[in-house]
């Protein structure tokens, strides 16, 4: 096994374990958020193995560096020390949730063999910020501009929702 492949499998295991840690951690919301940080950083490592350097950097900068800090900020602001809620959601609903997730997973994995495209050759600049930037600003510029409107709407929405009094 080559070194990058080893990196992939190590990060993959790390991502799955920490994702499970986030979902199964019932006691502590901050620890759950930190587990999700580990998942995000592992995914960034996997992106590097898959030659998506720019996306890997954005993954760390935006997800790990901003979005999850926002989660931590809110958890600390609301002081959610423990996660012990009552009454518990019914066991049937929980089982149904898990069963649905497992069913979806089995379905996905069953579809996988033979359904995937062949691997194409790539240029050495594939995944660099120049490559992604050129297609972002030349081919998909409309989608990019629409995204800016989405973010503006989100900012206004968040302020309206979270502000105590709008005067």
């Amino acid at each position, binding site marked *: 096994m080559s070194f990058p492949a080893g990196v992939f499998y190590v990060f993959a295991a790390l991502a799955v374990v920490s994702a499970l840690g986030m979902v199964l951690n019932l006691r502590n919301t901050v620890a*759950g958020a930190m587990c999700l940080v580990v998942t995000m950083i592992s995914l960034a490592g996997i992106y590097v193995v898959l030659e998506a350097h720019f996306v890997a950097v954005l993954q760390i900068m935006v997800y790990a560096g901003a979005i999850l800090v926002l989660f931590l900020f809110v958890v600390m602001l609301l002081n959610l020390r423990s996660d012990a809620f009552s009454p518990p959601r019914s066991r049937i609903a929980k089982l149904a949730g898990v069963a649905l997730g497992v069913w979806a997973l089995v379905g996905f994995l069953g579809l996988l063999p033979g359904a995937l*495209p062949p*691997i194409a050759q790539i240029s050495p600049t594939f*995944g660099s910020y120049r490559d992604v930037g050129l297609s972002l600003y030349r081919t998909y510029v409309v989608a990019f501009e629409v995204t800016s409107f989405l973010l503006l709407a989100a900012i206004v929405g968040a302020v309206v929702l979270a502000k105590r009094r709008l005067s």
Partner: protein
Amino acid sequence: MVVPLEHVIGLSAVLFAIGTIGALTRRNLVVILMSIELMLNAVNLSFVGFARAHGDALGHVFVLMVISVAAAEVAVGLGIVISLFRNRDSVNVEDVSLLRW
């Protein structure tokens, strides 16, 4: 490509399933939002994997779009969490069943 595409997409499916289970079974609104983030990330992973397989940067562009949608979703979602906590003193989704029949 250093690993088979099946493994990348398989990992993506596993993460997506974990996110689904988290979103369906947890009652803490913040954790539900985090599970949705995990599902979005799983989708991003398959985008990156397919982008590598096709040798096309479109997948990367799509990931950027997903990331900005996720950022918008988190901003609004956490805004809702804060105003909910202010009104109900709880982030348990079962405490906000006001509109449920």
